[in-house]
C-alpha cells in the first residue's frame, strides 16, 4: 500500500503532545555549568583593554574567556571568500551585542555576576548603522578588507538585450522598494549545550538545527577537530525558518567554555536576546525599471539593489548573488540587467531566512509587475499568464530550465477561488483583491546541497530503524522519510522508527535550506529502500530456492507462491553474524559549479505558486484586515497532504507578518522592539483562514514526482497583499511592512490633504518643549548619550525580595506601611514582566493583596453608583453587566485572555509605561535619570509616543482603563494604614504611567457615579494587533436628550499625551448643542490643530482625530454603545 500522498501523522506526534519531546533546554547534563556572554554595548568601538581578573576569582566561576584565549579561526558560514566572523571580538566590536567575553559558572546568577566584574574599556568609533551612512563618503570602514568601502560583495548581471538595443516599451515603470527586517522569532530561543570529553576525544553538542552537518562542520574547523570528533545529538527542534540552518553565534561560545572547563556547559538565550542578538532577514533596497510593449508583453528589466548585511558576512553575499539571478528568472524578459551591493552596517548580522534571496526580490518585482499591468490596462492575472515563465521545457533568460509547471493552473485556481472576476471590477472602496505568483528553486544544483545518505537497520522482529542525518525542525521530513520506506518495503508505519540529527548514528545529509529538505532526504530514503528491497528480495529468492523472478512484499512478509518469510527472519538471514540487517545508500544529485555570468540551470527542478488575497483597508486608522487567502501551489506530487498544507498555511501567515507588521526597528544599532509585545507578529485573531490548493503535477526529477514547498508560500503572499491594498485604495506602497502610519499618510498624500497635524504656533505654552526637541538633532541627544555612557550604565535592578501574605486589608496596609520598599502585588503580570526586563520594580517587598475580600467584587450600591474592587480581574470586569458596555469593552480589548484572567483593575491603572526604548534596555531619561536622553525624540516614535503635551519624556500612560474611567467620572479610593482619600482618576497620574500614590498607599476601589453609568458611552482603541498595547484609546460619554441635545459630555483620549486627558475644547464646543457632523468635525479639527506631534507621529494625530470624529458622531447619535 502506498503511503505517498496520504495524510500521515507526524511520527513524533505522541511525544510532541504529551510533553516528552526533548528540546535543548529540557535536557539536563550532569555537572552542567551555566554560560553567560558579555556583549558589546557599542555599535562600533575599539577595545582598549579587558581585565577579567576580578571575575575569575569570583567563587563559583570556572572559566572566563576573551578572544585572547580562543582560536583565531573564522567561521566558515556560507562562502569561503566571505569569511570575516570570529567567535569573540578581538580588537574591534562592530555591532551591539557582539560577544566579547564568556563566563562559565555553577549557575546563571553567578555567571551574570561575573560579567559585571569584567573591566573593559572601549573607544567609540564612528558608526554607520544604515546602508546610506555606510555608503556615504565620510563613512567609517567597518572592516579593513573590502575593496570598496563597506561593500562586502558586489554583483553585476547582464542577460539578453541591453536597454539601448531593445525597442522602447509602450508602458514602463520605475520604482524603489524596501523590504522589511523580519526576524525568525522561533518559539524556542537559541539554546545550546556542549560537552568536551577529552577521554573520548569528542565534543558533544546539543544544538537545534535543520542542518546538523553544517554545524558539525563549522565547529570542527573552528576548533581544529576532525568532524568525527564533533557529535551533534538528536533533539527536538523548536523551529528554524533558516535562522539555525547555519551556525549562529551561540554554538561556538558554549563549546569554547566546555573546552576550558571539560564540563558540560549550557547557554540559554532570553527572548530579548533572541530578538536583539540573533540573525534577521537581510533587508533589500531595490530600484526597478521595467516595461512592456503595446500588446502587454514584457520587454526589459533593470535593477539596482543594496542589501543590508549587518556587521559580518553570513548569508548576505550569497543571498544577494542568488537574488540577482532569481530576479530575472520569473518572466519572459528580452533583457535583464542588474547591479547590486551587499553593504556592511554596524548592526547585528543579517542572514538566511525562509525564502532567502528570493523573498525580497519577488516582493518588489511582483508589486512592480502588478503596477505595470495596470499601466498597460491589462488584468494582472492575464498579464502574468502571458508573461510569466510557465511552460514545461521553457528556459528563462538566466538559464533556468523548467521540468514541470502548473503555474497557469495555479493562477486560474486562485482567480476562481477568490472570486476575482466578480470582485476585481469593484476595487477602490476600501476592499480589494490582489494576486502574485512565484517560481522557486528546489535546492540549488551544488555539490553540498545534493548529497544525502540514509541507512536502515531491520531487527529480528522486522522492526525497521531508519537513520537519517536530517534535522526536522517541524517541516516534516522525518515523517516523509518513514512514509517513503514504508511504501517501498510495504510495512506499516508503526513498524518503523527513525533516528535523525545524531551525527554519530546517522550518515551525512545535506540538511534543509533552499527548499531541499524533502527533496534530498526523500531521494536518499527512496534510493535506500529500493536498494534494500532488491537486496532482500534476492536473499528471499535464494532462501525459497526458487531461482529468480519477483517476490511480493506485504504486511511485513515477503512471499512468492507458497513460500513466505517474515521480514525479521529475512533480516536475520541477510544480516548473518550481525543478527540484524543493515544497509546504507547514498544519493548524489546532479550538480555543477556556478557560472560567473549567472547563466545556469540553477536547481534540479522548480516549484510554482499563485496567491490571491482579499483585504479590507481602513485608510483613516491605517488598519488592514486580510479577509481571505487562496494559495495555489505546484509542488509536484504532494507526499503528505497534512504536512504540506501546514507548510502553506504557516508560510502564508509568516509572510503576512512580513508585509503587514514584522520588522526589527534599530536605533543607533540597537533593536528597539525586542519582545513579542513590541514585535508585531501574527496572532490567531489577526490571521485569516487560508484555502490551500495543490494543482496536480508530477515532476520528472523529484522523488515520486515531488518538488520543494517550504519557502514558496512565504515568498508569494507578501506582494499579493501589497497588490490587494493597491486595488482597495489605489495606494502603491513600496516599503514593507505596510504599517498603519504608512497607509494613513499615503492616503493623505494621494488626496492632497495636509501632512502635518498640529502646529506649535497654536501652543505658545509648549514652545520650550519644542525648543528642547529641536536641540536634540543639533547635539543635545548625542551629548546626553555620551554623558550617560561616562556615568556608567543604568542602575541594576534587583529582584523580588519577599512576598508577604495578608489576610485582611488592614494587615496589608500595615505591611505596606511598615516595610520599606514595599508594594502590593495582585495579578503580578506587569510586575513580573518588569523583573524579566531588568527594570526597577515598584517595590521589592511585595504584599499579596489578590485574594483580599475587601478588594474583590463589583458592588451596585443603593445610590445607583458602582464600586469596583481593585483586585477585580479584567476578565471579571469584561463580563460584568453593571459596568456598562464601554467599560466592558475596554477591558475585553486589553491584552490576551490569559492576561485578563490574572491582571487586575488596580494593576492596570498602576502599570509602568510601555515606551519601547524604556522597556527594551535603552538607558533613557526615565531609566537612568535626568542626564539621559529620551530616545523617542530621535528614534521611532510612530506608535507609542505622545502627540501632545509631552515633556522631556515622550512616553504615554499605558492604562486603557484609565481612559474610560475618566470618561465615567470615576474616583479612586486610596488607603494607607493611616488614612483614606479619594482622587479622580484624571488626577491619578503625575507623568507617563506614574501615579501620585505615596509610599504605603494603595488603590482599593474605583467608584463610578450613577449619572455616569446612565450616559451614552462608547470606546475605541487603535492597536497594532488585537491585544497589543494601545497606540491610542478614546472614550466618549454623553448625556443626550431624545431630541439630540447634549447636556453632559466627556471626551477622553489615552495614549496621546503623557497622561490620559479630557479634551475640554471638544466638550465645550459640543455641550448644550445638537451637534451635527459639521460641528463635530470642526471641534475635532480645533483639537487637532493644537496637537504638536513628533516628526514621525503626525499620522497618529490624524488617525486619532478621525477615530474621535467617527466615535463622537456615532456615540452621540446612539449608534455606538460600547
Amino acid at each position, binding site marked *: 500500500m502506498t503511503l505517498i500522498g496520504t*495524510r500521515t*501523522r*507526524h511520527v*513524533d*506526534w*505522541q511525544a*510532541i*503532545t*504529551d*510533553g*516528552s*519531546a526533548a528540546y535543548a*533546554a529540557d535536557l539536563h547534563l550532569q555537572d552542567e555549568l551555566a554560560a553567560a556572554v558579555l556583549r558589546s554595548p557599542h555599535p562600533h568601538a575599539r577595545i582598549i583593554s579587558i581585565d577579567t581578573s576580578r571575575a575569575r576569582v569570583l567563587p563559583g566561576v570556572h572559566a572566563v574567556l576573551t578572544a585572547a584565549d580562543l582560536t583565531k579561526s573564522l567561521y566558515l558560514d556560507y562562502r569561503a571568500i566571505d569569511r570575516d566572523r570570529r567567535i569573540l571580538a578581538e580588537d574591534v566590536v562592530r555591532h551591539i551585542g557582539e560577544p566579547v567575553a564568556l563566563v562559565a559558572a555553577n549557575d546563571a546568577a553567578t555567571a551574570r555576576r561575573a560579567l559585571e566584574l569584567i573591566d573593559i574599556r572601549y573607544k567609540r568609533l564612528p558608526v554607520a548603522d544604515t546602508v546610506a551612512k555606510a555608503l556615504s563618503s565620510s563613512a567609517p570602514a567597518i572592516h579593513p578588507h573590502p575593496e570598496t568601502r563597506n561593500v562586502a560583495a558586489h554583483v553585476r548581471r547582464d542577460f539578453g538585450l541591453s536597454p539601448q538595443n531593445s525597442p522602447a516599451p509602450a508602458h514602463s515603470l520605475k520604482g524603489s522598494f524596501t523590504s522589511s527586517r523580519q526576524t*525568525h522569532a*522561533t*518559539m*524556542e*530561543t537559541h539554546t545550546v549545550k556542549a560537552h568536551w570529553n577529552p577521554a573520548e576525544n569528542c565534543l558533544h553538542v546539543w544544538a537545534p538545527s535543520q542542518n546538523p552537518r553544517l554545524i558539525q562542520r563549522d565547529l570542527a574547523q573552528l576548533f581544529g577537530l576532525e568532524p568525527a570528533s564533533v557529535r551533534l545529538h538528536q533533539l*527536538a527542534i*523548536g*523551529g*528554524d525558518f533558516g535562522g539555525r540552518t547555519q551556525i549562529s553565534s551561540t554554538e561556538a561560545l558554549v563549546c569554547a567554555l566546555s573546552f576550558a572547563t571539560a564540563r558540560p556547559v549550557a547557554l540559554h538565550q532570553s*527572548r530579548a536576546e533572541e530578538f536583539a542578538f540573533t540573525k534577521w532577514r537581510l533587508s533589500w533596497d531595490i530600484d526597478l525599471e521595467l516595461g512592456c510593449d503595446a500588446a502587454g508583453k514584457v520587454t526589459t528589466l533593470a535593477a539596482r539593489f543594496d542589501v543590508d548585511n549587518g556587521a559580518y558576512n553570513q548569508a548576505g553575499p550569497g543571498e544577494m548573488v542568488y537574488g540577482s539571478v532569481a530576479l530575472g528568472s520569473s518572466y519572459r524578459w528580452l533583457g535583464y540587467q542588474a547591479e547590486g551591493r551587499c553593504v556592511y552596517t554596524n548592526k547585528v548580522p543579517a542572514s538566511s531566512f525562509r525564502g532567502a534571496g528570493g523573498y525580497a526580490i519577488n516582493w518588489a518585482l511582483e508589486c512592480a509587475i502588478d503596477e505595470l499591468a495596470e499601466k498597460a490596462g491589462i488584468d494582472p492575472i492575464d498579464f502574468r499568464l502571458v508573461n510569466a515563465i510557465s511552460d514545461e521545457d521553457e528556459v528563462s533568460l538566466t538559464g533556468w530550465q523548467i521540468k514541470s509547471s502548473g503555474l497557469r493552473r495555479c493562477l486560474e485556481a486562485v482567480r476562481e477561488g477568490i472570486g476575482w472576476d466578480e470582485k476585481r471590477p469593484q476595487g477602490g472602496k476600501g476592499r480589494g483583491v490582489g494576486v502574485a505568483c512565484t517560481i522557486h528553486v528546489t535546492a540549488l544544483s551544488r555539490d553540498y546541497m545534493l548529497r544525502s545518505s540514509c541507512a536502515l537497520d531491520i531487527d529480528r522482529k522486522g522492526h525497521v530503524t531508519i537513520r537519517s542525518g536530517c534535522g526536522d525542525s*517541524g517541516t516534516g521530513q522525518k515523517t516523509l522519510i518513514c512514509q517513503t520506506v514504508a511504501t517501498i518495503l510495504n510495512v506499516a508505519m508503526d513498524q518503523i522508527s527513525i533516528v535523525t540529527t545524531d551525527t554519530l548514528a546517522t550518515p551525512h545529509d545535506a540538511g534543509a535550506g533552499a527548499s531541499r529538505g524533502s527533496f534530498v532526504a526523500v531521494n536518499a530514503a527512496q534510493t535506500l529502500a529500493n536498494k534494500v528491497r532488491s537486496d532482500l528480495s534476492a536473499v528471499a529468492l535464494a532462501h525459497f530456492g526458487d531461482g529468480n523472478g519477483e517476490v511480493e512484499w506485504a504486511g511485513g512478509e515477503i512471499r512468492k507462491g507458497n513460500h513466505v518469510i517474515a521480514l525479521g527472519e529475512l533480516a536475520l538471514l541477510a544480516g548473518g553474524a550481525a543478527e540484524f540487517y543493515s544497509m546504507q545508500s547514498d544519493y548524489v544529485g546532479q550538480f555543477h559549479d556556478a557560472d560567473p555570468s549567472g547563466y545556469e540551470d540553477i536547481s534540479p527542478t522548480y516549484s510554482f505558486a499563485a496567491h490571491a488575497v482579499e483585504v479590507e483597508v481602513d485608510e483613516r486608522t491605517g488598519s488592514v484586515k486580510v479577509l481571505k487567502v487562496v494559495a495555489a501551489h505546484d509542488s509536484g506530487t504532494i507526499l503528505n497532504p*497534512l*504536512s504540506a498544507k*501546514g507548510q502553506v*498555511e*504557516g508560510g*502564508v*501567515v*509568516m509572510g503576512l507578518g512580513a508585509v503587514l507588521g514584522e520588522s526589527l526597528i534599530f536605533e543607533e544599532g540597537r533593536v528597539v522592539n525586542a*519582545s*513579542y*509585545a513590541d514585535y508585531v*507578529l*501574527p*496572532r*490567531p*485573531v489577526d*490571521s485569516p*483562514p*487560508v484555502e490551500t490548493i495543490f494543482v496536480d503535477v508530477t515532476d520528472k526529477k523529484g522523488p515520486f514526482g515531488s518538488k520543494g514547498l517550504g519557502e514558496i508560500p512565504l515568498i508569494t503572499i507578501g506582494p499579493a497583499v501589497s497588490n490587494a491594498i493597491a486595488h482597495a485604495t489605489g495606494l502603491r506602497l513600496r516599503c514593507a511592512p505596510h504599517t498603519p502610519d504608512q497607509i494613513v499618510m499615503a492616503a493623505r498624500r494621494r488626496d492632497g490633504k495636509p501632512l502635518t497635524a498640529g502646529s506649535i504656533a497654536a501652543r505658545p505654552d509648549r514652545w520650550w518643549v519644542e525648543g528642547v526637541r529641536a536641540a536634540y538633532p543639533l547635539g543635545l541627544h548625542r551629548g546626553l548619550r555620551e554623558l550617560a555612557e561616562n556615568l556608567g550604565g543604568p542602575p541594576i535592578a534587583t529582584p*523580588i*525580595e519577599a*512576598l508577604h501574605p495578608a489576610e485582611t486589608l488592614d494587615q496589608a496596609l500595615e505591611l505596606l506601611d511598615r516595610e520599606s520598599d514595599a508594594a502590593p502585588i495582585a495579578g*503580578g*503580570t506587569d510586575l*513580573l*514582566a518588569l523583573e*524579566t*526586563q531588568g527594570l526597577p520594580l515598584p517595590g521589592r517587598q511585595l504584599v499579596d493583596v489578590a485574594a483580599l475580600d475587601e478588594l474583590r467584587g463589583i458592588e451596585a450600591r443603593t445610590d445607583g453608583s458602582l464600586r469596583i474592587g481593585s483586585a477585580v480581574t479584567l476578565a471579571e470586569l469584561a463580563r460584568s453587566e453593571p459596568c456598562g458596555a464601554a467599560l466592558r469593552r475596554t477591558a475585553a480589548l486589553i*491584552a*490576551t*485572555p*490569559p492576561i485578563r*484572567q*490574572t491582571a487586575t483593575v488596580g494593576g492596570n491603572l498602576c502599570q509602568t509605561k510601555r515606551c519601547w526604548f524604556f522597556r527594551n534596555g535603552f538607558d533613557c531619561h526615565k531609566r537612568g535619570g535626568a542626564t539621559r536622553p529620551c530616545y523617542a525624540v530621535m528614534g521611532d516614535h510612530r506608535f507609542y509616543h505622545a502627540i501632545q503635551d509631552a515633556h522631556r519624556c515622550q512616553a504615554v500612560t499605558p492604562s486603557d482603563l484609565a481612559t474610560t474611567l475618566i470618561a465615567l467620572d470615576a474616583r479612586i479610593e486610596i488607603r494607607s494604614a493611616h488614612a483614606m482619600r479619594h482622587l479622580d482618576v484624571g488626577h491619578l497620574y503625575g507623568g507617563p504611567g506614574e501615579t501620585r500614590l505615596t509610599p504605603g498607599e494603595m488603590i482599593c476601589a474605583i467608584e463610578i457615579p450613577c449619572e455616569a453609568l446612565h450616559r451614552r458611552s462608547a470606546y475605541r482603541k487603535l492597536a497594532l494587533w*488585537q*491585544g497589543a498595547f494601545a497606540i491610542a484609546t478614546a472614550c466618549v460619554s454623553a448625556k443626550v436628550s431624545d431630541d439630540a441635545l447634549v447636556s453632559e459630555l466627556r471626551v477622553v483620549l489615552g495614549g496621546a499625551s503623557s497622561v490620559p486627558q479630557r479634551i475640554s475644547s471638544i466638550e465645550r464646543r459640543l455641550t448644550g448643542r445638537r451637534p451635527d457632523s459639521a460641528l463635530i468635525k470642526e471641534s475635532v479639527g480645533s483639537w487637532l490643530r493644537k496637537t504638536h506631534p513628533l516628526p514621525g507621529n503626525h499620522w497618529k494625530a490624524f488617525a486619532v482625530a478621525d477615530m474621535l470624529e467617527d466615535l463622537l458622531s456615532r456615540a452621540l447619535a446612539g449608534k455606538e454603545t460600547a
Partner: protein
Amino acid sequence: MIIRLTVNGRQHEVEISAATRLIDVLRDQLGLTGTKQGCRAGECGACTILVGGQPIQACITLASRVRDEVRTVEGLDDRFIPLRQAFADHGGFQCGFCTPGQLMRAAALLAETPLERLSDEAWLREQMNGNVCRCTGYCGIIRALMSEDVRALARDNAPE
C-alpha cells in the same frame, strides 16, 4: 521557604525563594519539562498550565502564591487523547514547541465552553490569542479545535 504543591495529582515539597516562578519549579525542580518557556514575560503562552482548572501563565506566576492543584501537559489524562490526536490529524503543530501551551489552553476551554461556542471560529481565535505559534499560522490549531472528535470530547465533559 518550603512550599507544598500538588502537581498532576502528586504532592511535592519544594524549597523556593520569594522570587521563584512556577515555571522554574516545574521544569527545574520537578523535572516537568513539558511546560515550555518562550518569553518569560506573559507574552507568548508557551508556559500555559492549569491551576485550579484555570489557564495560567507559569512564567509570570510566583510559585509561593499557588494554592490550587497544578496540571501540566504531562498530567493531561486519557480523556484528552482525542484532543492530542486532533492536533496531530489537523496540522495543529509543526515544531511542537508551543504545543503544550496550546493544549493546556484548549483543555481549559473545553472544560468551560458551551458546545455551540466551539463552532464559532472568531470566538475561538480570540480565546487562543494569547498563544503564539510561529509554525502553523494557527489554521491547523483552529481546525483541530473545531473537529468532530474535540466537540465530542467537549460534549462528554460539558460543564454541568
